[in-house]
């Protein structure tokens, strides 16, 4: 069956949100558009909008390919989606608070205890501690896929340190520079306000020790991290310091940064360093990226860490399959956004089903990310499947499986004109004194014909994502 195309119902019939864009497109000279694509690439290269590829020594900085055709959503489509997202992130925070306190949801028998107790992502050190404002996951990038007109699924919650928001903003900037007329014809809701919202959102959860206006900083592992550009970009756009572990130290019960004028306390730390590396005193002792003593300062009210340590338990792929129950448990209403049906390979029956249907399923590691370590059944070879089945049998609890979804397509620009490619969507959500959702997000697109893997590390690209005002 042909997947749902978000622009074209048939070759002649264009879906509403794309109407004005399509009119515009028909008047464009294809050669000129090709040149514009080259211009966009040169622009990204010059401004250094690159990501680092692990394990490649030379030329380690790559560009994420950018496609000129925007992904467009109507106001009503977006509003529905946003409501579902707000419900879900509210539930995620309530879930985390519960897990680290009374664990009512386990007592109620909705989530099995074994998934929590033995899980590396669950941090004992967080038990009984409530972060400032009661917020655990402040910045979330919910991965959503679409399979039909009204059929959306959440693929992943990304409640730890989601990345990609800088591309959302730079993609818009690039489009506005290249095709200003499109923004005159279409009323597109802005995304460039994100850093402003992020700053406000972080400032609203200052710790008890904060006096006056909160001092915010972004913690980066450093320039060799794959997302360093984004860390620098966000610090820059918010007008806050970008610090590395070596710039800060615990002094007098506060985390302070070494400035040219001496040490200055940080109130809110937006950390882009994983839990394991955050505090060598508590977690991985060999970490050079973290800040010794930060967990003590945190628990004594000296600093806010965003996202809180231990949020990974909420976006764990083994927990994922329980999300519909979790949402309903905390919000008292059925989940507005659907989960993808998921087989937990830890269950014997599910494992048997998965092994028998590898050809149709996508099998993922519970803790994997970035599209690594997964099997896409329909495009795999017999050898790959056999190899994967061995791994699966060795440690079934390490895997979940999902049906291969017919992801929606949006056209990209190719030599011969437009051609459909599969996409997903990562809206960015800020949780603090209130929930702030930036209209749009990052659309990732599989550039290879027929491919369902949209990850940039696997050759995916991105698109500007428009939410229309009317």
């Amino acid at each position, binding site marked *: 069956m042909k997947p749902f195309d978000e622009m074209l119902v048939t070759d002649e019939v264009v879906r509403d949100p794309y109407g004005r864009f399509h009119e515009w497109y028909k008047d464009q000279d294809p050669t000129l558009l090709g040149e514009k694509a080259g211009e966009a690439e040169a622009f990204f*290269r*010059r*401004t*250094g909008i690159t990501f680092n590829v692990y394990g490649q020594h030379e030329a380690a900085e790559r560009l994420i390919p950018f496609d000129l055709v925007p992904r467009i959503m109507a106001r009503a489509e977006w509003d529905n989606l946003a409501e579902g997202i707000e419900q879900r992130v509210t539930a995620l925070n309530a879930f985390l608070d519960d897990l680290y306190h009374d664990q009512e949801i386990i007592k109620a028998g909705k989530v099995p205890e074994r998934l929590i107790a033995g899980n590396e992502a669950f941090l004992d050190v967080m038990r009984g501690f409530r972060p400032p404002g009661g917020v655990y996951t402040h910045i979330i990038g919910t991965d959503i896929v679409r399979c039909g007109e009204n059929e959306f699924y959440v693929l992943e919650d990304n409640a730890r340190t989601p990345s990609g928001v800088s591309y959302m903003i730079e993609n818009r900037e690039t489009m506005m520079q290249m095709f200003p007329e499109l923004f005159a014809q279409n009323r597109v809701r802005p995304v460039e306000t994100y850093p402003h919202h992020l700053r406000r959102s972080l400032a609203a959860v200052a710790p008890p020790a904060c006096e006056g206006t909160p001092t915010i900083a972004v913690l980066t592992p*450093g*320039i060799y991290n794959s997302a*360093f550009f984004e860390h*620098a970009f966000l*610090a*820059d756009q918010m*007008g806050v*310091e*970008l*610090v*590395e572990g*070596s*710039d800060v130290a615990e002094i007098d019960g506060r985390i302070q*940064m*070494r*400035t*040219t*004028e*001496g040490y*200055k306390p940080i109130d809110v730390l937006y950390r882009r360093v994983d839990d394991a590396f955050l505090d060598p005193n508590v977690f991985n002792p060999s970490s050079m990226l973290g800040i010794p003593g930060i967990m003590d300062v945190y628990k004594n009210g000296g600093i806010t860490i965003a996202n809180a340590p231990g949020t990974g338990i909420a976006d764990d792929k083994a927990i994922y399959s329980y999300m519909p129950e979790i949402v309903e448990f905390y919000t008292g209403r059925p989940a507005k956004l659907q989960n993808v049906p998921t087989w937990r390979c830890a269950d014997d029956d599910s494992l048997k089903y998965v092994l028998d249907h590898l050809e149709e399923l996508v099998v993922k590691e519970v803790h994997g990310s970035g599209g690594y370590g997964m099997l896409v059944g329909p495009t795999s070879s017999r050898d790959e499947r056999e190899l994967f089945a061995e791994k699966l049998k060795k440690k079934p609890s390490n895997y979940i499986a999902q049906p291969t979804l017919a992801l929606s397509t949006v056209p990209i620009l190719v030599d011969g004109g437009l051609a459909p490619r599969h996409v997903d969507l990562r809206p960015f959500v800020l949780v603090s004194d209130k929930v702030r959702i930036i209209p749009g997000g990052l659309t990732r697109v599989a550039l290879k014909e027929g491919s369902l893997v949209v990850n940039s590390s696997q050759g995916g690209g991105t698109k500007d994502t428009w939410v229309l005002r009317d």
Partner: protein
Amino acid sequence: MALLGRTANGLFWMFRYIERAENTARLLDAGQRISLTNLSSEPDEWQPVLVSAGVEAAYNAKYQDYDAETVIDFMLCDRDNPSSVRSSLETARTNGRMVRTALTRELWEAVNESWLVIQRRLSAPVSTRELPAVIDLVKRQGALIRGAFQTTMLRNEIFDFCNLGAFIERADNTARILDVKYWLLLPEHSQVGSALDNFQWRSILRSVSAHRAYAWEYDGEYQAVNIIDFLMLNRRMPRSLAHCYHLIAESLGYLDRNYEVHHPCHNTAMAIRERLAGASVRQIIDGGLHEFLEGFIRDNNRLAQEIGQSYRFYPGS
């Protein structure tokens, strides 16, 4: 807004390496001009270029002979040479990337683009025929960076740390060029006042874009006293030690006022500036030009370290 010590350090070294890249290119320019005249009968005419750049030991660890192609490649492209044009720009750009939040978009793009363009140009060996074009490219990109710096950066402490790096590096470079050539200036101990019919000096002045300026300032012949005055004591000459120290002291003064703290490094800089202002060429020659320059290079390095301590460039400070 507070400025991180590491950021100040990154700005300082970014500009040292931007300056160094250009200086290395200028040294090659002088070397090329001298070798083209065939006036020199010495087989090792490229050696002083390596000594001036302070990379002779690194070169000798890798090569035995001083042939033009090898020296040029070592100075332009070699990653084992931290002062090669390629390494310098790479270091400058890495520092720039690290401190990106402190830079205007224009300045960052100028640095990033220079690195992209020059790296691409240096990915294949450069023949002596192509050398002038490559040197021009390096100088032009340097001008682009400085233009973006001067016209877009706020005059705050970020600006001051960049300037400190640039002028400490430039003072070091000028002192080294002079030190390598001091024996040319004073071939016989006594002939200080006599005219030098010296193509090498014209080439060196030319390589620092100053042969015409020299003519304007001194009206004529190449005399040792005038060349020493020009490159060391003349504050109007933008590459002279005195000019560099005028700006270094000024930048440190701005930092003092900005932070309302007077650091000892400022005293060190003032003392060096006063020594240059109070010196006469005759005194320098009588006391030994080489000794003076050696002392200057040492003091200049010490000042760089003191600045790093005062403004907490490194962890633990």
